[in-house]
């Protein structure tokens, strides 16, 4: 019989066991944790995007000075200033990486951190050039985290209309061919379907969803006007809007120009049964197994439809289904979760990072993550990271997990825990005789700890 088990809950729906934190006693407590005060965001702050934007404004100003003074010392000085802005953002972003690892390490409600990662991946967005490349953390803080327990449609709107998403999926360049501005300008004007396509394929209906190329085109036309302007963020440009109503999935949206028809279309997409099924499938794959039980997907999808995408209800449906509690650990942890859960198991204190230089973080975290196949917050496509175990359990990926396990915790921590205790605290009831034996037989403490981290029961969830 598959039933709730506190340790399993912490492993499957959190970042594993911590020696200092008691796992939630039942599914009700696990869920209720999501609605407690977000203490981790307070203790480990990450700059919200609206503040981050000031960095973009500063970089843009220096670039402008450069352009206007080409070949002069003034341009040189501006270039230098711009590079300082870039460097400061890069260093800050490394700090935010540590903050988000620390949230996973110390949270009493680690399910919240998992959901933040899940939805951040569902709504993957990245900056492409210049200082905005460091904006992913701030975007998650602003568009994703506040919406974890609300309605799916609210998160969809906040993510799709976020400046970073508009930049990432080329919406900032998309101009209605028949718009006022295009008629004036001619040559450079053009529709870009990227955001519209990904909204249908990735964010809502899913790749097998009931939409056609024509829906993509019409939604792209409906999206025209949504752009960004560095000093204000989101900017709706009426003169970029393609005139006339647009028909998406047989429903007409107008009048134009205006943001209301765009919001209405997104809300309708959010409420579509195909979206419910797509989201339910994705949650099941992410949290339970690469090949989830159909009954589980149906159960979650139905709740999504019944409650109009009330995410708390959707999570409740996921957690109450027996299929979610199969005792066998199946999904492989992706590299970032492997590192986060290692920190959690070792109860790595935030003070250990205070004196680290940029180079230390690069060697200890950024390089290993990239070598394991998951460069920090940099998936190569808007589809985000793979869910399939095969993508992570590769020879190269695992070799680097071994290297990291042996090399990094021992350098980061003043004193590693006693390996014999660590087996029990890190794996709980998932500890096997083999791992216990390895922990006490290893030649050195760092190898013993590393071996426990490499145990299959620690690599999977």
């Amino acid at each position, binding site marked *: 019989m598959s039933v709730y088990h506190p340790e399993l809950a912490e492993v499957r729906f959190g970042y594993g066991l911590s020696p200092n934190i008691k796992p939630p006693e039942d599914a009700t407590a696990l869920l209720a944790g999501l609605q407690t005060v977000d203490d981790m965001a307070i203790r480990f702050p990450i700059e919200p995007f609206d503040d981050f934007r000031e960095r973009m404004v500063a970089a843009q100003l220096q670039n402008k000075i450069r352009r206007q003074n*080409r*070949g002069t010392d003034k341009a040189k000085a501006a270039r230098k200033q711009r590079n300082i802005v870039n460097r400061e953002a890069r260093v800050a972003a490394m700090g935010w990486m540590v903050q988000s690892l620390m949230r996973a390490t110390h949270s009493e409600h680690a399910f919240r951190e998992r959901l933040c990662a899940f939805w951040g991946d569902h709504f993957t967005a990245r900056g*492409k*050039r210049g200082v905005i490349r460091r904006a992913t953390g701030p975007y998650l803080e602003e568009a994703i985290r506040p919406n974890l327990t609300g309605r799916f449609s609210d998160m969809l709107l906040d993510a799709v209309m976020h400046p970073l998403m508009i930049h990432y999926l*080329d919406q900032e*360049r998309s101009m209605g061919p028949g718009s006022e501005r295009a008629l004036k300008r001619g040559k*450079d004007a053009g529709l870009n*379907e*990227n955001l519209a*396509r*990904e909204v249908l*394929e990735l964010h809502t209906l899913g790749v097998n969803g009931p939409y056609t190329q024509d829906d993509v085109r019409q939604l792209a036309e409906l999206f025209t006007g949504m752009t960004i302007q560095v000093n204000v963020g989101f900017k709706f440009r009426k003169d970029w809007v393609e005139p006339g109503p647009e028909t998406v999935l047989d429903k007409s949206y107008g009048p134009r120009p205006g943001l209301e028809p765009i919001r209405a279309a997104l809300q309708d997409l959010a409420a579509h049964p195909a979206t419910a099924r797509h989201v339910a499938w994705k949650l099941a794959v992410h949290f339970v197994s690469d090949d989830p039980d159909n009954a589980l997907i149906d159960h979650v999808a139905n709740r999504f439809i019944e409650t109009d995408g009330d995410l708390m209800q959707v999570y409740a449906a996921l957690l109450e289904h027996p299929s979610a509690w199969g005792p066998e650990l199946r999904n*492989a942890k992706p590299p970032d979760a492997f590192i986060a859960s290692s920190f959690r198991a070792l109860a790595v204190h935030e003070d250990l990072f205070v004196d680290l230089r940029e180079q230390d973080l*690069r*060697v*200890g975290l950024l*390089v*290993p993550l*990239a*070598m394991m*196949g998951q*460069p920090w917050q940099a998936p*190569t*496509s808007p*589809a985000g990271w793979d869910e399939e*175990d*095969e993508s992570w*359990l*590769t*020879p*190269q*990926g*695992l*070799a*680097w997990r*071994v*290297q*990291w396990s*042996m*090399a*990094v915790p021992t*350098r980061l921590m003043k004193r590693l825990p006693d390996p014999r205790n660590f087996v029990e605290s890190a794996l709980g009831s998932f500890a096997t*005789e*083999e*791992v216990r*034996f*390895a922990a006490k*037989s*290893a*030649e*050195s403490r*760092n*190898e013993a700890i*590393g*071996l426990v981290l*490499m*145990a*299959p029961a620690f*690599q*999977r969830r």
Partner: protein
Amino acid sequence: MSTSISRRSFLMRTGAVGCSLAASPLVTPVSFAAMPGANRLVVIILRGGMDGLDVVQPYGDPVLGQSRPTLKVGPSSGASDLDGYFALHPSFNPLMPLWTAGDLGFVHAVSTPYRDKRSHFDGQDLLEAGTTTLGEGARDGWLNRLLQVYPKFDAHTAFAIGRGDLKLLDGSAPVANWFPQTQLGLSSQAERLLELITESDPEIHAALAEAQGLVEDKDQQSATLQDIRKAAAQQKGGAHISIAEFAAKQLSKQARIAAFSLNGWDTHRGQARELPRALARLSDTILTLKSQTRDSVWQKTTIVALTEFGRTVRENGTTGTDHGTGGLMIMAGGAVRGGRVHGDWPGLAESDLYDGRDLLPTRDIRANLAWLMRGLFGLDQSVLEGTVFPGLEMGRDPGLIL
């Protein structure tokens, strides 16, 4: 419980790549009959936008020298004359024997369909996705789609070498990924214990065993931060030799496809200083691939080096060049029809340029690649035009393969 499993028996049972395959759910065992053909393809992505006009210099057109006051042009400045019109950058001198032997060739004035925005990010995405536009939502790369349609491939046919962020090989077909500096970082005792604790998990066990087979120099020491630092430094520069050595080794065995990238082509300033460094790395890479393979393998090998776009015809104000359009594709190997500069040369007169500034692309680089793959792997034109490069019209055969 026993820990007396000797290192030898661990390797015997699982260490050799071939033996571990049966345990991996990813792979169906391959017999010799099912081995793909003997042709090998190496794809090198040159990130940053290589200035093809400085590599294969159309010195026969005086416009080039006039447009580039500080950049040296033609045989009088040390470049090797190729055919009386084009000359090869001096940094490629070590490759001249290959040119003479017909093992080095070029396709000039080619590009992806990418136009006008000239962004590295988008240009590389399109080059690797192999689609006509970026809005088509392709998640995979064209080289992976080639694997998807070619039934004889398995998980050891293709290697992405390096950090693994090659979109070119992303996709549903299994691809091995390896960074040659990777260590397992275990003492022999820990290695045995790792073997013991992962035995219950066939997937993890097989992948680790395979890693054992791929690690180059085992030092039997548990990993330290210094090892990671070393690998990180390698990743930044100087990795090209070990990447080429590793590729040559794999291509000499089961692998038929290898891909990796080389950086350092974005020569906005000081091009006369920067470009030779990048060219030397590429030249070393090609020569290493040649020296580390047997002649029989080299004769079946095609190396292509691709870049996201070319650079402006005119030199800029900082003794470099800016992002352009038409570019150069480099081919090497015993299987290519070398010793010539392929392509339709558009000329450099003001009116012949794209947008009044860039070399005009006269052919889609994907058409060249498609013909190349048709020659190497015998794929149908319909598959190449429909799946590998959706929407492409291959047109006439440029005859790049012998």
